């Protein structure tokens, strides 16, 4: 599948040039099985600032590549995560929904293993064979349990190839499925009892590890077994507290989504972007920049949700022929994001309009006047 056909490419395919540049300039020691050194992995995630890295591709063409920042947040957290993945413990990223846990795990896996697609999506219906291995039943019936008949799952592949396996929403998986990881993380081996002899034991190659995510709104980590908890180091990914960083993320993500949508038209301007992010930021914080208290919505006002609203607002403007993305487009899609479970959330939004948007509109601050005028769309 080409880049233009895919809705969304994994990180290693989105940034092949950056990974090449980092590899070419990487002078630090690499843990066994890693494509890059820990410092280069960190750089892939947190960027190189203004510095361009020189490198040559396979055809001898010279390039200079700036490594873009992909994760906005605490760099120390990224460092701890990388070091954990270089150790014999798994990494469990916990936090509120939409705080870029999966985003971080994807980019870590892409930089460390060159692949972020060995992914298990935790759910109530997931079974052990979806994680470890299954069987090609035609071959199984024809040949019996042979390596040829075995269909490897992400964990099996990760262990045999020495790559990072991602386990999304691990706490949503049943306990017995979660505990599948126990021997893989502690003994670094996977038993295949159906296969005779050496084929029945899979030893993990160097480079294998697991990065899991769990959000604190669903089933928390409290229900995980103590045995499994012991095999993970935990990192809490907090919501962003820096408005400008959040603006930068939403801008970046919305632009990327629009580029991938295969349509053309107006994009999100900075003024509208700031309205959107400020709204999310302030409702999440429970107070405005002026220090006025506002109610918090029950729905998660995450950065990911802000990206979604921004993307939909821009699509709306494109498909319905507007010359530009206006504040009213944001308002139209805002209630869909902010009102998930409770009608009270709508009251929260309306309250926010009264105490935060209205005074700014009255002071004629930027696009706030149009934002206020569009309050009728909050339904």
């Amino acid at each position, binding site marked *: 599948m080409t880049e233009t056909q895919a809705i969304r490419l994994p990180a290693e395919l989105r940034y092949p040039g950056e990974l090449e540049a980092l590899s070419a300039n990487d002078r630090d020691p690499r843990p066994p099985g890693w494509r890059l050194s*820990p*410092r280069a992995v*960190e750089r892939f995630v947190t960027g190189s600032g203004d510095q361009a890295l020189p490198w040559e591709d396979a055809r001898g063409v010279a390039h200079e590549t700036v490594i873009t920042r992909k994760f906005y947040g605490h*760099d*120390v957290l990224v*460092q*701890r995560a*990388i*070091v*954990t993945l*270089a*150790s*014999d*413990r798994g990494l469990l990223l*916990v*936090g509120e929904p939409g705080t870029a846990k999966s985003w971080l795990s994807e980019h870590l896996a892409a930089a460390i293993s060159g692949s972020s697609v060995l992914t298990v999506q935790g759910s109530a219906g997931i079974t052990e064979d979806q994680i470890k291995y299954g069987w090609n039943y035609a071959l199984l019936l024809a040949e019996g349990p042979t390596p040829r008949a075995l269909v490897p799952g992400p964990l099996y592949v990760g262990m045999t190839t020495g790559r990072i396996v991602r386990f999304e929403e691990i706490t949503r998986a049943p306990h017995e499925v979660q505990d599948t990881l126990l021997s893989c993380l502690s003994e670094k081996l996977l038993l295949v009892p159906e296969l005779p002899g050496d084929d029945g034991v899979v030893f993990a190659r160097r480079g294998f590890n697991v990065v899991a995510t769990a959000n*604190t709104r669903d089933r*928390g*980590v*409290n229900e995980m077994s*103590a045995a499994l*908890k*012991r095999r*993970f*180091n*935990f*990192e*809490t990914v907090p919501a962003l507290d820096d408005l400008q960083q959040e603006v930068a993320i939403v801008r970046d993500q919305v632009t990327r989504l629009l580029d991938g949508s295969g349509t053309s038209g107006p994009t999100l301007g900075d003024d509208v972007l700031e309205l959107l992010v400020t709204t999310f930021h302030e409702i999440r914080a429970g107070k405005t920049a002026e220090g006025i208290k506002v109610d918090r919505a029950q729905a998660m006002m995450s950065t990911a949700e802000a990206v979604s609203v921004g993307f939909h607002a821009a699509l709306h403007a494109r498909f319905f022929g507007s010359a530009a993305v206006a504040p009213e487009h944001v308002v139209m899609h805002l209630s869909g994001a902010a009102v998930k479970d409770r009608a009270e959330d709508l009251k929260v939004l309306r309250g926010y309009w009264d105490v935060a948007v209205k005074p700014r509109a009255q002071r004629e601050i930027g696009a706030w006047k149009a934002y206020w005028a569009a309050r009728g769309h909050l339904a």
Partner: protein
Amino acid sequence: MARAAAVPTAHDAVIAAIEADPRVIWLPIRHFSAASARVVGEWIRRERPVAVLVEGPEDATDLIPHLVHADTRPPVTVMSTWIDKKNAFGGSGVLTADPSIPARYRAWWPMTETSAEYQALVAGQEVGAALRFVDVSLKAGVPWSHVPRERMVASVEVRHRLEEAFFQRLAERTRTRSFDAFWRAGFELGAIDRDPMLWRRAVLTFAWCARNLGGDEAALEADGTLPRERHMRAHLDEVAKAHPEGRIAVVTGAFHTVALPWTRGKRATKADAATSTLLTAHSWRALSSLYDRVRLPAWDGAVWDAVVAGEARPHAVAARRMVVEVARAARSRGLPVSTADAVAADDVANGLAALRGLAEPGLEEVLDAVQSTFVKGDRLTHGGAIEVVAREVLVGSRVGRVVEGAGRPPLLASFYEEAKRVKVDLSGEPKVVRCDPARQDGHKEKSAFLHRAEYVGVPIFDDLERTRGEGRAHFRGADPVEGTGQELLGETWGIRWREAVDDRLVELSDRGPTLEAVAASQMAERLAEVRGDAAAAVRELLRCAQMRLGAMVDEALRVAEAAFAEDQAVDHLVAALADLVVVHAYRDALDTRGDTRVAMAILDVYRRACLRLPAVRNVPDEQVEGALDRLQTLVRVAATFDAVALDRALLTEKVREMVRDPRGQPALRGAGYGILYGFGAVREAALVRELEGYLLGSPLHVRLGAGFLDGLFATARTIVLGRETRLLAVVTRSLTRLDWGTFKLLLPELRRAFTRFTPHELDAIAARLSAPDEPVVDGPVPEAVRRLVAAADARAASGVRREAVAPSGAPARR
């Protein structure tokens, strides 16, 4: 000594000049830096200078032999106190509550194993060098170091901002999370492998940059930097003259080192007789709470232990020790942290150090590793307990020791002697101490000791296992000051010594040589604060009596008497009166019991309270309850205090004046009438007439009537409990005439008024209402009450029914 005319403008020239100095070994340091301490110690042992001059108060030079004695064990501190008796710096009345109280200034120069100053002196003693502190005394430093922010010269603020910005930028550029982390990464970690000469060069470069940030040179004059440097230079010149041969080591903050070689010496003011400078033991816990640079002293201690043990990677060794100690401490608190977790934490700490390009893991790496590996879940919900444990371990509990003969602050010595004398066990084990000062004279001293310790904040107390009700968790017993525990005999205290006790005593030691003197000193300041407030002044008098501070009782009484004349607030005067009665007649036999001066004060304040009484008649609604309490207190004292004759006629006259205004607060008027009735100054007929005036008036007045009744019941319950029933008859008759709506409005206040009676009394009232001539008998619910309740129920039910069928918006009427 030869000196250049001006500081060279290029930093390499400065460094070259410092390195080439033939007479002086310039040793730049950072305070509380293990690398500085190690480099300085090694340098001095190698170069064997004839003298070692160290940044520290010059008047502490006599203490150096004690400081470097083998039996002295850091942490210790030089502590200096200066009392500005002549108010030379204008602090009296500004920094203190009253111009009569002189400002007192205090400063500490703490020394730990990682203090380069301490290690320099220890090494200097080893090589037989003359040792000297060369900085200005506390007194000389007051004009610079105790400047209130509002009086700070603008250029000094600019300078501070420049420095902050510089430090912040350094941290940002090196991707460290703070300036301290920057320092550790750049100058501490791996320093053991660095050539001391190169290390010094790096420190000098850093200091030169910090010194040349720009800003006005006057800032350095105004904040005391230049005068201090001139003073230190004067010391150096003097020592150089005394030792024409050999080299002299000068150990100062690096910021000074890059300027001192080009400074012209000039002495600052010397310490005077009002200065007291001592060497005393300190603790890591106290250090942690007092100084930003040593928030986690156990970490520094672990690094130093590893340095002394000759470890090649002392920080790595310290990191391992700390993660293991945190894991053990966490386990002892029931947290699920295993040895495997400790191994993983050590692994992560080393991995982080490698990732960050550090030679070995430092404090930041330890903290990160602990968080990453020991916290099993969301940091916000699961991380708190581990953070607390980690902090406790990294703060540590080491307590220093000062060699015998160095002299301890007299307060420390006298405190422990007194504790021993009154048999208060300060061994560190939790103890329960009981004393009964009212019945055993021998316990008075013990009680006073404990109350004084509590008052001045010496933390020898521990929670008692069973502490009932409110108040202090470490104390159970009668407390006349707070008015609690009056039903209890004697006092029970929870006691436990901890290292913070000595820290607090050291802090207090400039206030006096004994606990009594310290308490008196603190009380004198408190009395200055409460001048003009009669209630607060008498409260302090009571406290003085409780602590048996004889001299302060006189002073407190004088302040209180002055306050009676100034204070116009009736509530203050009545509260003062009530407390004075306690001071005079408290059952626990305070030393003031029966004191004639106190009796005279009672007479005075009673008279003044009576004179001001009419002023309370119009207090706002929310203050009525308090005013009623005060009125009752006044009456109670007038009725019961018999040590001197209190003028009841005056009280009667003023109460009469208070109730005369028909627009006054009805509850207070009711209470006033009740008092007058009780004194026989008004007949029931007049009282009934007054009540009828309310109850037969407009609905608004009817409500006010309920307030009147409330006040009346507060001061004259007997009026309805006695044989007279006329008043109740008026109430009953008035209520039956009310329409339903008005009755409903009145009901809550009426109920509140009747809450003044006990259930038994209510039974009696109900019985009397239904059968005025029948005697009241105890027993099951009287039939009369049943009838009353049934009638009220029927009335309420009928009202509710009517309201339920009334058209919307049209209130049902009876």
